[in-house]
């Protein structure tokens, strides 16, 4: 078993808690206006995945898909239940974000590599390859803010695609860039997917899910509606979408 998600729930407080200053908080407390309520981002989700499984996670916005990926990648702890994973995890969530505009492309590459859990030797060895794959040879010592959005996601993809994980977690990042690079990144992605890693990914493109996943999890407002074989769950999901819009 590679991933064992057992009855997990994530509950937290929302309401006046967020983005309040201390002064404002005290004022609201005194006036008795302070209100919070419990929010269930996930409720009682359970499933297991074996080696080589490809899980597609579907559901409308706010279904708890990203929260689930965060729990599995270890960024968040569930409030109830447990999640056990077996092996090295690589979570590629929102690739393009989180680079530092003031630092050079080279520095950003090393920093991101360090965050991905690569060693220094590995980075020294792979650095030329990363830059070459991202086609950013001429930009290595330029500040990162000089890069276009496309260039930045190319770099992010190149760093991430070096991983050889046992469990791969993706948040809608199957390919990036335009034209030639798109083809290149899709090829690289298929290579990783074919390496036998257990993969979980969130997608809004049902045709994509149907073509690569062997299992599908459907979430709605934090609750697990269905988990099972691709065709079965996709059909159910499609039917519900059709009903809603019709």
């Amino acid at each position, binding site marked *: 078993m590679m991933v064992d998600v057992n009855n997990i729930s994530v509950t937290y407080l929302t309401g006046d808690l967020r983005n309040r200053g201390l002064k404002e*908080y005290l004022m609201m407390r005194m006036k008795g206006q302070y209100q919070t309520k419990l929010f269930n981002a996930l409720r009682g989700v359970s499933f297991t995945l074996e080696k080589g499984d490809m899980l597609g996670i579907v559901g409308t916005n706010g279904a708890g898909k990203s929260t689930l990926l965060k729990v599995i990648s*270890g960024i968040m702890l569930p409030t109830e239940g447990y999640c056990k994973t077996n092996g090295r995890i690589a979570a590629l969530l929102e690739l393009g974000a989180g680079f530092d505009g003031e630092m050079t492309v080279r520095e950003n590459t090393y920093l991101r590599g360090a965050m*991905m859990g690569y060693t220094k030797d590995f980075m020294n060895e792979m650095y030329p390859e990363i830059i070459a794959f991202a086609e950013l040879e001429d930009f290595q010592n330029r500040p990162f803010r000089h890069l276009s959005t496309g260039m930045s996601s190319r770099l992010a993809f190149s760093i991430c695609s070096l991983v050889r994980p046992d469990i791969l977690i993706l948040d809608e990042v199957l390919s990036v860039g335009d034209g030639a690079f798109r083809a290149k990144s899709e090829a690289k992605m298929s290579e990783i997917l074919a390496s036998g890693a257990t993969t979980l990914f969130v997608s809004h493109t049902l045709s994509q899910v149907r073509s690569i996943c062997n299992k599908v999890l459907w979430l709605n407002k934090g609750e697990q509606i269905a988990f099972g074989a691709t065709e079965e769950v996709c059909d159910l999901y499609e039917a519900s979408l059709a009903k809603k819009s019709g």
Partner: protein
Amino acid sequence: MMDRARRYSFLFEELVKRDFKHKYKRTILGMLWSLLSPLAQLLVLNIIFINFFGRTQPHYTTYLFTGLMVFTYFNDATTQGMRALDANAYIISKINVPKYLFVFSRIVSSLINFTLTLVIYLVFVAVDQIPLTFTFFTLFYPIVFLTIMNIGLALILSALHIFFKDLEYLYSIFTMLVMYASAIFYSTESFSPGLRRVFYLNPVYDFILYFRTVVIDGAIPSLELHLICAGYALAAFLLGFWLYRKYNYQFLYYM
């Protein structure tokens, strides 16, 4: 375990480099400036207090510099550390890395700055005709414990800062009060013994006192002062560590 340590040591190294570069905007002048700014402060206070308030105590420049140096390290490390989690929220909420690394890296970057100031300080001390002796090695003691205290306070403050964004302003007022209560430019000798004891409640004062006892008086501080410094440091560290352990996964929900 070894793998984990090696992996995070690389990340930590990269984070310290980043914070250091950010601080100085990668210019020599930026680095020089961070050394010049306490020196400029020193110069101004020196002129004011010697000329206008007629401070005549021996080694007043060293006395003043000691206080400024210790306070600046405390202020810089805790203020920078407080912002560490919030400033890196975009990373912490996307990648599974230990969050305390971001706080520690800010402290280390302040410690490097402090060490550079310390070198200049020792030059000033020599110019002030104070003999540099082996007793000076005892200064490692307050430096180590002040760093531990800074880590502890930064862990506490950074956790609170996630919930209360205006903490920055409130904390800057607080540190200003601490500065005035640390006897940086005045001496506590004119106060009554009872009032003088109150100063010991301020940890920054205690660390400054330790430095002054070693450097200006050429003596090793009392056992009592050793215990006070260690006590404050460990209390802050344990509280910070406990808060972090208990709440660090919950930060995510509010980022």
